[in-house]
């Protein structure tokens, strides 16, 4: 009983530190999901326009980001890009985190958006064209709104991946949840396991509802056969 009270007290003591970490995790993941989705949305639409050169370039981009671990991408963007003598590429830790995570997000989103647009029945855009809409108009008014609905379930899956990937940012010294937990462990090394459990629990509380939402959305809006998770 005493040890439970003791752990509870410890938990209360640690909470402010871990909450600042969770807030950082939330901030970084939000930035990344918004910027990455916009970029991915744009690339995904470009990819459905059937221009061979554009499709190939985007394909190469996707292969590079899907073919290497995020940890390697993080090291490249954090350590290597600055060595090209370009002012624009000299990121500090936080910017490097956002940039790398956004690019990583966009590689998933591009694939989802392409699949979602292709999943909208061809007849829809043909119909739109036949009533005199331009290609852009039919995309904007007819295809994209439906594709967006279809992409909700896999997009929530991507969000979970991104939240979990932020844990790696501790390696470059961003004080997000994992890093703050490590800082706490340095002060209280005897409670290493307990602190890691608390961190895991906090990630769980953040991710689990999103996963449930994803499952619910898939029942509601249907699957397009892309499951990033």
């Amino acid at each position, binding site marked *: 009983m005493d040890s439970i009270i003791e752990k509870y007290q410890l938990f209360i003591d640690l909470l402010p530190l871990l909450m600042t970490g969770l807030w950082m995790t939330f901030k970084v993941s939000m930035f990344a999901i918004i910027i990455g989705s916009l970029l991915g949305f744009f690339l995904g639409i470009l990819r459905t326009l059937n221009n061979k050169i554009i499709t190939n370039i985007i394909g190469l981009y996707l292969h590079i980001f899907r073919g290497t671990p995020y940890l390697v991408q993080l090291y490249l963007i954090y*350590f290597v890009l*600055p060595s090209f003598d370009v002012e624009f590429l000299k990121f*500090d830790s936080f910017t490097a985190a956002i940039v790398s995570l956004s690019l990583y997000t966009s590689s998933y989103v591009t694939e989802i958006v392409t699949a979602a647009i292709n999943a909208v029945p061809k007849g829809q855009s043909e119909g739109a064209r036949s009533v005199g809409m331009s290609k852009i108009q039919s995309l904007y008014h007819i295809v994209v709104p439906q594709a967006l609905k279809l992409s909700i379930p896999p997009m929530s899956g991507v969000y979970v991946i991104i939240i979990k990937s932020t844990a790696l940012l*501790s*390696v470059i*010294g961003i004080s997000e949840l994992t890093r703050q937990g*490590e800082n706490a462990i340095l*002060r209280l090394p*005897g409670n*290493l396991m307990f602190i890691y459990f608390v961190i895991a629990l906090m990630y769980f509380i953040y991710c689990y509802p999103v996963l449930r939402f994803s499952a619910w959305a898939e029942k509601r809006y249907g699957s397009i056969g892309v499951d990033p998770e």
Partner: protein
Amino acid sequence: MKFSILKTALAVFITAFISTSAFAESTMEKIVKTGKLTIAVQTQGPPVSFVNKAGKRTGFAVELAQMMADDMGVELVVQDYDWKGLIPALISGKADVIAADMTPTAKRHMQIVFTEPVFFSETIAFAKADKGFSSWKDLNKDGISVGATQASSWSDIARKMISNAKLKEYSGGTAQTVQAVVAGRIDAGISDRATIAAFTSSNKDLVVLDGQITKEPLGFAVRPDSLHLLHALNNYKRLIELDGRLGQKIQYWWNSTDWQADHN
């Protein structure tokens, strides 16, 4: 018409080229012009650079740089990087100076140039008290595992001086090495006395083993072309050495754990 566009483009290109190469300003000129001295420090490396309990970045290197910036009358900008990120940050011009406890090794000198030694580190080994080691020499045996920060001079020293033990390199830094020792993953860790003092005073299970493995000079570093700044740093070091201010800071941060009462 076409020709004139080409000519304008050429002119723009040449101006851009000249302004970046021929008239490139020295690091010191940049500091004078912008009024900012930018240093790169390690994210978590008490007591050299760390975030204290009040959430403020402080430490031995930060205070030294602050002192110099104050005397120069410029603003100090502190940027923190992971240990492995310090040299790339300096080379790419994100920072003017690396203010860290870095050993001027031959390999590092091929990339950057170090100031005169500002302080010295004693490389030591630490272990859990119940392991029963007394000296670091006890570690140099088959079947013993030691840990050190990846890309640090400690791992080089371990490889050389404790060659019979198995070396495990932790990319997360001293913090992870300490965690691994506490969890029983490795028998001992290699680090320096001042860095480990912070851990042993808060965790009674950890002890520093007898004997100093090596002694190493530690200095700040600049880009090879920042000669003016390098001389300025060297002379400033001698200045504060003789007026006693360097000694005070070293005593407070490096040779004692006085700082812990104020910052931990």
